[in-house]
């Protein structure tokens, strides 16, 4: 089993698509940051002063009670409420802040998840496209073992690839912020939060990779795997879930959103009076994603075990 796993990891490592995705990430981040650095101008003193004056004015309005009562907004005091609602960066010139990187990562997380699905589908479909599955099976005829080794290799590859991609992205953003932004206002323990977000997104990307692997194994090609995956996103997540509310509760796109943002998503069923609300918590999101991955892998395993390799 260890030998098989080593073989699968070597195979995954040797795939051109893996190298290409890494290189593309480096180039995209480097180019994006370079363009941002060259086209962004630092704010003038006048803009900074104007922003500071607006901030002070709004803070004064808030403290005068113009923003409502703190208890209604869930705050203990007026000062605490105003500190949350009125912050300098809302009024001053737009200055990129290191503390915003986590938000940016969450916002671009769907690209990382799709990257995971692509990696899974391509590693799962490569052998079928090249016709080398028969070659592999005459070395290791126990198909369940082959699939298990592949699952581990694909999950590891997707994890490592997406962590590296995100690390490169964060590094690029940090360089940009060092030149044009500020590290002020970065809360204590922020790096820990940032790392947790990166790992969370990569873990979901790993699950997406396993779904891509399953679909490519069932369809016996990368194109089939990716086609079904994207078709599902468009038809089920984009269209069907708007017609049938219960579908929203079980789709993996919304579950992934809850996990990646680490926030509860409220799904509102407008067809009932009064509208009913389903709280999709991050925990529920993990369960939904895990269930999708397990069911698809079981289907892939059954198909792989029973069908002839011709």
């Amino acid at each position, binding site marked *: 089993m260890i030998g098989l796993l080593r*073989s699968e990891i070597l195979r995954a490592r040797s795939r051109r698509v893996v190298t290409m995705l890494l290189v593309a990430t480096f180039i995209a981040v480097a180019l994006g940051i370079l363009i941002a650095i060259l086209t962004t101008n630092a704010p003038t003193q006048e803009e900074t002063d104007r922003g500071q004056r607006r901030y002070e004015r709004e803070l004064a309005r808030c403290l005068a009670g113009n923003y409502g009562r703190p208890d209604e907004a869930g705050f203990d005091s007026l000062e605490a409420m105003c500190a949350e609602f009125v912050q300098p960066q809302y009024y001053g010139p737009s200055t990129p802040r290191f503390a915003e990187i986590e938000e940016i990562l969450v916002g671009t997380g769907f690209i990382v998840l799709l990257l995971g699905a692509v990696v899974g589908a391509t590693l799962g479909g490569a052998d079928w496209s090249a*016709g080398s599955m028969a*070659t592999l099976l*005459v070395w*290791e005829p126990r198909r369940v073992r082959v699939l298990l080794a592949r699952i581990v290799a694909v999950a590891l590859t997707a994890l490592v690839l997406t962590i590296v991609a995100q690390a490169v992205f964060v590094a690029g953003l940090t360089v940009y912020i060092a030149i044009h932004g500020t590290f002020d206002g970065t809360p204590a323990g922020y790096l820990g939060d940032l790392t947790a977000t990166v790992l969370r997104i990569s873990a979901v990307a790993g699950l997406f990779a396993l779904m891509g692997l399953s679909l490519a194994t069932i369809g016996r090609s990368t194109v089939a795997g990716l086609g079904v995956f994207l078709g599902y996103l468009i038809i089920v997540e984009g269209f069907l879930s708007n017609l049938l509310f219960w579908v929203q509760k079980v789709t993996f796109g919304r579950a992934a959103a809850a996990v990646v943002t680490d926030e509860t998503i409220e799904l509102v069923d407008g067809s009932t009076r009064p509208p009913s609300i389903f709280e999709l918590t991050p925990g529920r999101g993990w369960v939904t994603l895990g269930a999708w991955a397990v069911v698809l892998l079981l289907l892939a395993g059954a198909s792989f075990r029973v069908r002839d390799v011709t």
Partner: protein
Amino acid sequence: MGVIEVEGLRKDFRRLRGGTTTAIAGLDLEVPEGGVFGFLGPNGAGKTTTIRCLLGLVRPGAGHVKLLGADVPRGLASTIGDVGSIVEQPALFPRFSGRRNLEILARTQGVGAPTIDAVLERVSLADRQRDLVKTYSLGMKQRLGIAAALLKDPSLLILDEPANGLDPAGIVEVRELIRSLGAEGRTVFVSSHILSEVQQVADRLAIVARGRLVTQGPVGEVLASAGARGLVVRVGDPSAAVAVLREAGIQVDVHAEVLRVHVDAAEGARVNRALAERGIYAAEIRADAADLETVFLELTRDEGLGP
């Protein structure tokens, strides 16, 4: 006990538009240990499907298959380490180097780098091992496939149409390789539809057509089963020679200036004397031995399986 035992093997494939296609229709086969065994049949005879059944890639509809004494597919895992194979074209990753392709396979069974070096040397690919497989000629890919099959140092090699698509030089190379592997004491099971190839390398053979066994045995016996065919005689003046032999009561035909004399092959001296006494000297007298192609066509025709 044979290294390959097949009994009552049957495989039907479902067609997309309904119905089934029978690839193997109750095949029995026994391959003894050692030497080269030719598995002969026209395209569509069920050779590749049989090999896929042997290797557990395809599940038989009926029948039993044993490989090195182990039931397939249940016991295959215990014997597969001693079986090297190529099924149809060797399927390799074209964008990996030849060596990387072998390394991926080698790692599954913990085969080390020295063995990879040795098999690459053996198939004369050592100097091209770092090149991408997509730059290889068909013959080189075929040799790399054989190298992959040899990585396990197997006692049984199953090669499906190893000379397919090769140029004459490639065919000779692969033929020599197969001969040498058989001479080492391994059992080499070679399927082919190229009759002359099998005749040149195999010690024993089986002929299949339409998923059924037509005959099997040592090559000499199978050829002999076609019976005596007389003599082939070349002379300067064929028409004069025909007249002389017919006068002597010997049946003879002429095809393309070559005489086919219908006597026992042992009567070459009598034919030669009859011609020489009339001043006709033969340039060549040899037995008109049946080749495998003739035998194959006769046997499949007899079985109602021929073209």
